[in-house]
Each structure stands twice: as structure tokens, then as C-alpha cells.
């Protein structure tokens, strides 16, 4: 089996590369680093320094290493939609879109055309194969580092050609293994934040350089009373609390809605910032075969299907019922959740096997 291992220059993918090299033999394994971002970046996974780390780890492991320039596709499929989303009052998750369109689409296609059977990545998630040969996507062994949320859009086609070699390990074990092998990335800090946004400019600076930002008004979500100015409506996210002040009774205020064209941000008390349900589009299922858990989404049309919803990368899973309709899904929470900003992804897990991803969707 020939394996293309995606090496970001971080410790997880370094160890993933070491593990597949050991398992399949180094002549069966080639490392690849994606150059995704043409601009400057310091917090991400494709700076020159990161490429160098990936290359030097590959050298150490005796692997051939390539750099693939996917910057144009990254701009089209990740960065531009991220900017457009903010311009329209949505908050897309760029990591998920990168996984959807780059790592588990462009890269899988590139790997296949180059004659590789699978792509291995350093994600903390687990792939399982059922007795019937169907693929399951499960949470990584380390609950604090689990990345199944950002992979929840994967389906059978992608999982059939993907390996997650570090999914069974905790982060501490990954670092121990890297140290044992003497890999230069053993103590490298985890990547943070959005990879194409520099820490010194931040989200405000980045979006400000790409978008005309508009001042707007804060209003009460019920009465419509004016509550003051806001510097840039494009930078406000539904559910946000920071910078929104307090109401006259001293309670914190939350963003309940962002209307960019009207330059208006609605604020409400905590209970208004929570919702009983969220509606999803761009719905995906890990497995929609007839007798598979995701296949039960057929059940979601009637009485609904039980699911555990997770609304952010490290959000608390919440027991839910899912109904499907022509537009997508409605996820009803057992207890109200902080409002999900439009554009954010909700991952659904199996209530009977809470480690197992059923599917995903993007909040309207």
C-alpha cells in the first residue's frame, strides 16, 4: 500500500508520518506539505518555517517529500468564502472548509492520480471499519485534542482513502513518541487560530484589509431601541458577548442577530442568546447506507432521530433530536444552547455510540 502523508510541519503529522513509515515501509510512504496561503502568516501551517520542519522530519524518516501549491484553490474555496461570509453576516469555519475542499478533496485527488492508495493525516480522530466494510469516523483517543468535529463532513469515499495514525494516541503520547524518535517538532507548540490570519493583525486587521467595514448600531432584539454604536458590523458574530456591555439591570448582553445590509446588531439577555434548535444546510452523512446509523436520517423525517450535537470545535455535546426536511435538518436541543452563528458547523454524533460521528451541517 502506498501512502501519501500530509505533513503540516507540526508534531501530530510528524508522528503520523513516522508511524506509517514504520507500518508500511518508508519506500511506500511519501510526505507532502500543502502550500495553502500565499500571504504572510505566523500562526498557521504553511509558513516557510513549517515547510522546512516538515521537510526535515521527512528527511530524518527517509521519506521523499513534496510541496504542493494549492494556494489558488485555498483562496477560492476557503479564504474568499470566509471573507464573503463575514460581509454577509455569517461566520464560516475555515478549517472545516479547508478539510472539505483541500485536504479531503484536492489532496485525495492528487494522491490518487499520483498512484497512492491512501492519504494519512495527523488529525486526532479514529477511523473504524465495520464487519460489513463500512467506515466509521470516531472521536480521537485524547478528549482534549479530539478533532472529529472538523472532520465531521467526511463520507465513505473519503474515509476509504484516509488514515489517522495518531487518532489512538493522546497528545502527550504523540509528543513522547516524537521525542523518542528525536523529531525536531517534538516540542513545537500547537497551531492556533486561523492559519491565514497573522496574530499581529488579527481577524479585524485581516477582514479590514479585504472588506469595507461598516459602522452600525446596536439595538435591543425586542424593542429595537438604540443601544449605541458598533465599529464594524462585519466583525460581530451571533452569540458573541465580548464588547456588548450590560443592560440596565446589569445582565450581560449577547448578540442575537447580525444584519449587515441594515448595519444593525441585535442584542438580548442570556436567554435570548440561547436557542432550542438550529437549522442546518449543506448536510453530510458519514454513512447513509440503508442499515447504517446515518442511514437512519431517513427516520429523521418522521418522529425524528436521536443525535448528540456539538456546535463548536470544543463545544459541549448536547443530546438532541434531528428532523429532516427539504431544506436540510432541524436540530432540537434537549437544553437550550448558545445561539449558533450562521455559517458555523454542527457535528452530529450517534447517541448509542457517542464517539461516532453521524454527520454534519452548517447553520443557516
Amino acid at each position: 500500500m502506498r501512502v501519501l502523508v500530509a505533513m503540516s510541519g507540526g508534531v501530530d503529522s510528524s508522528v503520523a508520518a513516522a508511524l506509517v513509515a514504520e507500518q508500511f515501509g518508508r519506500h511506500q510512504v511519501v510526505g507532502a506539505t500543502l502550500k495553502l496561503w500565499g500571504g504572510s502568516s505566523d500562526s498557521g501551517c504553511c509558513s516557510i518555517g513549517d515547510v522546512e520542519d516538515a521537510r526535515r522530519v521527512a528527511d530524518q524518516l527517509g521519506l521523499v517529500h513534496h510541496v504542493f501549491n494549492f494556494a489558488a484553490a485555498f483562496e477560492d474555496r476557503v479564504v474568499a468564502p470566509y471573507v464573503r461570509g463575514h460581509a454577509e453576516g455569517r461566520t464560516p469555519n475555515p478549517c472545516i472548509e479547508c478539510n472539505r475542499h483541500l485536504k479531503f478533496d484536492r489532496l485525495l485527488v492528487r494522491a490518487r492520480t499520483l498512484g497512492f492508495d491512501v492519504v494519512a493525516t495527523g488529525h486526532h480522530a479514529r477511523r473504524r471499519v465495520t464487519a460489513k466494510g463500512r467506515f466509521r469516523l470516531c472521536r480521537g483517543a485524547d478528549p482534549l485534542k479530539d478533532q472529529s468535529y472538523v472532520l465531521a463532513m467526511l463520507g465513505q469515499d473519503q474515509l476509504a482513502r484516509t488514515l489517522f495514525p495518531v487518532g489512538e494516541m493522546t497528545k502527550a503520547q504523540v509528543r513522547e513518541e516524537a521525542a523518542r524518535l528525536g523529531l525536531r517538532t517534538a516540542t513545537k507548540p500547537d497551531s492556533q487560530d486561523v492559519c491565514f490570519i497573522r496574530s499581529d493583525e488579527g481577524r479585524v486587521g485581516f477582514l479590514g484589509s479585504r472588506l469595507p467595514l461598516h459602522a452600525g448600531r446596536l439595538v435591543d432584539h425586542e424593542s429595537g431601541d438604540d443601544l449605541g454604536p458598533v465599529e464594524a458590523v462585519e466583525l460581530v458574530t451571533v452569540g458573541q458577548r465580548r464588547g456588548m456591555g450590560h443592560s440596565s439591570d446589569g445582565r450581560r448582553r449577547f448578540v442575537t442577530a447580525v444584519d449587515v445590509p441594515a448595519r444593525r446588531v441585535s442584542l438580548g439577555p442570556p436567554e435570548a442568546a440561547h436557542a432550542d434548535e438550529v437549522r442546518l444546510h449543506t448536510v453530510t452523512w458519514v454513512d447513509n447506507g440503508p442499515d447504517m446509523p446515518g442511514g437512519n436520517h431517513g427516520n429523521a423525517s418522521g418522529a425524528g432521530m436521536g443525535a448528540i450535537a456539538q456546535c463548536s470545535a470544543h463545544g459541549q455535546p448536547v443530546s438532541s433530536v434531528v428532523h429532516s426536511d427539504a431544506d436540510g435538518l432541524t436540530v432540537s436541543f434537549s437544553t437550550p444552547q448558545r445561539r449558533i452563528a450562521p455559517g458555523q458547523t454542527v457535528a452530529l454524533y450517534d447517541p448509542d455510540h457517542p464517539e461516532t460521528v453521524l454527520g454534519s451541517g452548517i447553520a443557516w
Partner: protein
Amino acid sequence: MRVYLDHAATAPMAPEAVEAMLPYLSGRFGNPSGSHRESRQARRAVDDAREQIALLLGADPSEVVFTSGGTEADNLAVVGGWEAVAATRPSPPALVCSAMEHHAVLHTCRALARRTGAALREVRSGKDGIVDLEALAEACMPDVGLVSVMTVNNEIGTVQPMDAVASVVRSRSSMAVLHTDAVQAVPWLDAGASTAPADLVAVSAHKFGGPKGVGALVVRHPTTIHPLIHGGGQERERRSGTHNVAGIVAMAAALSATHSARPDTVRRVTALRDRLGDGLLTSVAGSTETGAREHKTAGHLHLRVAGVEGEALVVLLDEAGVSTSAGAACSSGAVEASHVLASMGLGPDEAASGIRFSLGPSTTGEHIDHALAVVPDAVAQLRD
């Protein structure tokens, strides 16, 4: 079998060059700027090399400025040449360059324009890979201080009409200095004749059998340049720093070997290149040659293969034993989208489908046979 078809990126060193430099890496270690026997020995070597190089580049020895390579020579020409003109003008003169210049020129022009507020006009090329002379004439207004047009394009190998370029520049931009990046020209063209119309000429040793890390800028009288690197005042105050004696000696040896073998090399490599090009255009459906072959150097073949990404093809060919290149390599090893193909009006997908085969003096008929055998299979696999 390993088939190296990336000579435009770098070429193996000529044995003459290796032999010439070795003594200067051991016993003859002197600093040419001193005043004792070791220094005299080293200075003599640099002076000899300078005369030899000047002769073969059609220049006077005093016009040759040694640099650390082609990129430094281009930087020195663009910045130093422009600054010398700007020093005589009340406001920053404009810059003109072809849009297909190597990044060593293009990015230098852009940085200089950004820093000084000088206008920069980038001139498109035609589908034939030749700079558009009408567009050049439009750009060459009286305010221009420096024009840069490469002698041979590095990606597609087209030879630019330097005489016509020079006559446009001289007739329209009277104060402009004309620079040409001749890095890709030296292996294939008579460097003196092909660069004669230019005031500044950049060359790089490792493209013609010399070592990496050494090059030269010809600064033709009466053109002057301002230095970029200050210090001991070497190279007549135009480029300070202790001479790379071994590199300079080896560059002279490589240039001399290239020059004497050139007629034979060009004849032989042209036949090999034509066989490779004609063969691939026949055996690879949907392949198109970029630029007109009659305008190209002997060593260059650039194809666009419909529906195939050059970046992926390079990887497969590498596994099949053939070293090629797609676009310009950036520092990370990724392939940059080709600004050269864009300058010819090709769209992004078409530009991404490009692959360059660049032959050299050591390319053999067997190498071409091997490439002809493996390229169609690699293309088929990518289209599968």
C-alpha cells in the same frame, strides 16, 4: 536511469570548472585585496578570469562586476542603475520591465517602485512568448530611467529581440538605462553579440557549468551604477566584499568551455530537443508547445498538457527517473503559478498545465528515448 532535463534551473558543473577552482579552495587561498604574495596570486587569478569573461561577454574588463550570482546582478542593475539615473533627476524616474522577467528583476522593480514611489510599467508579451514591442513603446515614455528586458525567458526559452527593444528604448526614453538578464542566454547564444545592445547585462555561472554563488554584471561605459553593498570598495566601488576567488576562476573556465563547445552543443541539443518536442506533441494528446520554436534556445522545450497539472506531472516524472520543472520553483519547493504564461495572456488553468524540459550539453539520445517512453504514461495516469 536518471534523466536530468532541468538545466534551466541549474546545470552540472563542467569538469574544466571543477578543476580550475580546486587550487583556490586549498593552497591558493589569498585575499586578492592584500599586498603580499598570497594576495598577488589570488588577484592575478581574478584579473585573468575577469579578462577572459569580459572577452567572451563582449565587454571591457573594467566593465565586469563580480557578484554572488544572477539574482544579485539583477538587483544591482535595477536598483543601482536606476539610482544612478535618479540621482540626476528632480523626481523619481519610471521603471519599465517585461512582465515575463525573472522574479530577480520583477520583484526588484516592484520593491523599488514601492519604496521610492517611482512608476512601474510591466509590459505584456504576445502568445509567441516575445515581449510586445508596441506595448513596450507605449511604456517607454520620456520619464523612464531604467528598462529591463531579459535576453532569453527562463520558463519557455524564447529569445527576445534585443536590437528592436534597444531601438525602442533609445528613440523614446533618452535617459533610460537598458538592462538585460542574460542568465539563460549564455549556454546557448553568443553572449557578447546577443547582449550588445544593453547597458547592463546579468549572468550567472551555475547555468553554464560554473558553480552556484557567483555571477557578474556587465556595466557598459559610460553607464554608471550605485552600489548596493558597501564595504572595502572592491569592484571599483561597485560591489564590496572579498572576492569569491575560486568561484570567479571556475566561472571563467566554464564560460570558456561553453563558448568553444557552443556551436557543436547547439547543433546537437537542437536535434535532441526537436525529437523530444515532436515526439511528445505526437504521443501526448492535448499537448501544445508554448511559444514559437524558431524563437527559442536549443535547450528549451515548454509544453502545456490539457487537463494535467504540471505540478503533479513533475512528481510522477521524478518517480519515473526524469527531472523536469513546472513553472518557477519557490523557496519552499512549491510550484508558483507562472507569471510568464500569464504575461502571454494564458488563463490560470492553462498556465498550471505547463511543464518545462530543459536540455543541456550532457543530454544524450538515450535520455530523450527514456523521456519519450515515460511521459505519455505519466500523462495517462494523471488523466485516469
